[in-house]
């Protein structure tokens, strides 16, 4: 069924697509965290292992890193976006498949060979810093914004830290469709930031800042060439 806004989108504003309250949004993460615990330990360990592999053996394990990221994108797209978020925001039903597409692109990019994480220019180093921030800092944010820790967004469980950490790692990558792999996580961060902004949430600037930093790093790299 075609949503009505598609044919008359000019009569709608961003706020019109905000269908839920901040309380409902953050409780969605609380319920997901409760449902999936202790999977968080595994996803965080996988993320930290990826960063360590990129630091220590940058030219090896490209396929495995891509496969782990693919699995996590597929899981977040299904478990959080499709199964939970789409229930309160019908627009997400059209966005969740993009996480599946990202997983597919990662698999293809890894399987084609040539995917390495060996870029150590400023953008690459900044990327790894961003990845660590997505992994370690993001779950610690709730108390800073007056929310319970149970609503923490964790890499591999929640979309924002997953997109941020993946983008950070990909900034250090080369070959294997890397430029194409940046698009969906960047667009997600833009959408997430705008949604949080429409909610009036003080955290709205975080995904937008992450996306802007990634774009700035890419621009710097292009200029430096």
């Amino acid at each position, binding site marked *: *069924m*075609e*949503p009505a806004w598609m044919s*008359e989108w000019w*009569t709608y504003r961003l706020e019109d697509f905000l*269908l*839920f*309250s901040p309380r*409902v949004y953050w409780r969605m993460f609380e319920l997901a965290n409760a449902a999936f615990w202790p999977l968080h330990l595994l996803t965080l360990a996988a993320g930290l292992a990826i960063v360590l592999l990129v630091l220590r053996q940058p030219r090896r394990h490209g396929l495995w890193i891509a496969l782990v990221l693919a699995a996590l994108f597929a899981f977040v797209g299904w478990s959080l976006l499709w199964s939970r978020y789409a*229930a309160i925001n019908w627009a997400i039903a059209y966005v969740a498949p993009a996480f599946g597409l990202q997983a597919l692109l990662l698999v293809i990019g890894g399987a084609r060979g040539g995917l390495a994480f060996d870029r150590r220019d400023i953008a690459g180093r900044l990327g790894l810093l961003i990845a660590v921030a997505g992994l370690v800092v993001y779950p610690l944010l709730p108390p800073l914004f007056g929310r319970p820790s149970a609503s923490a967004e964790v890499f591999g469980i929640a979309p924002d830290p997953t997109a941020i950490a993946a983008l950070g790692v990909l900034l250090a990558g080369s070959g294997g469709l890397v430029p194409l792999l940046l698009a969906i996580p960047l667009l997600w961060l833009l959408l997430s930031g705008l949604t949080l902004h429409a909610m009036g949430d003080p955290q709205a600037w975080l995904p937008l800042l992450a996306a802007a930093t990634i774009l700035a790093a890419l621009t710097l790299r292009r200029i430096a060439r």
Partner: protein
Amino acid sequence: MIITRRTFVKTAAASGAALVLPAAAPGAPPAPAMRAVPSSGEMLPAVGLGTWITFNVGDDPVLRDECAEVMAAFFAAGGRMIDSSPMYGSSQPVIGYGLEKLGRPEALFSAEKVWTSSAADGPAQIEQSRRFWGVPRFDLVQVHNLVAWETHLETLFAMKADGRIRYVGITTSEGRRHDLFEQIMRAHPLDFVQFTYNVVDREAEERLLPLAAERGMAVIVNRPFRQGALTRQLQGETLPDWAAGIGAATWAQFILKFIVSHPAVTVALPATTRVDHVRENLLAATGPLPDAAMRERMAAYVRDL
């Protein structure tokens, strides 16, 4: 205790009165003011329950129960009209959950919308909405934001003729497309129209409200609090002393009394997640209501803040 004839008669009389006049029972809230639907004469309480954002809680069991409690308080305070839309995420199944939990209250007046740009999908969408609510039929179905309104209106009038819905309406909000809205009101025998109107958004007073009165259409007012922004804005301001004269104890009641006192308004639709607020909203439709002069004073007061 010895039951004398006098106490028996008094008790029996009180019990009888309670059966026909529940609002008069001790401790029961005063009944809200009633408004007639012009096309049928059916009486509806002047304050209903909106579900935009507030009822979109997904599968969260705690929040679903909270919504059911709001609905219980709404019906207990004499409310009837609950309004929703396929656009409102999970609001429809959450309403259905609440109705089931409350034992399908007979007082319910179900107001829904059709919201799809594909005219052919309209009947299927209405049927899906009906299943979510778990009602045998909707009382009112409205074309949401005038989307594909021509064909949807054909569908709705046919459904009304078949007895599958009772009333037909159209909606808009925040002043969108009032020109087209007015044209449709002039051309079609609508039972209900729904648009935004409150103490600061008064554009509807110029054409839509008088036209609704002229054409005999019931008026549902959406976004009475500007999606909460108006009450938040007024929160720090002092309610004028003279508000007590119209029975407004809070800004929410002040705003609702302004809306429902317009002679063309049938039902105002505040939305809330709180039981105390739903009671407060229904109370706004009780007691004295402002006259035309007082309404102007209310609007001027808010404008000057």
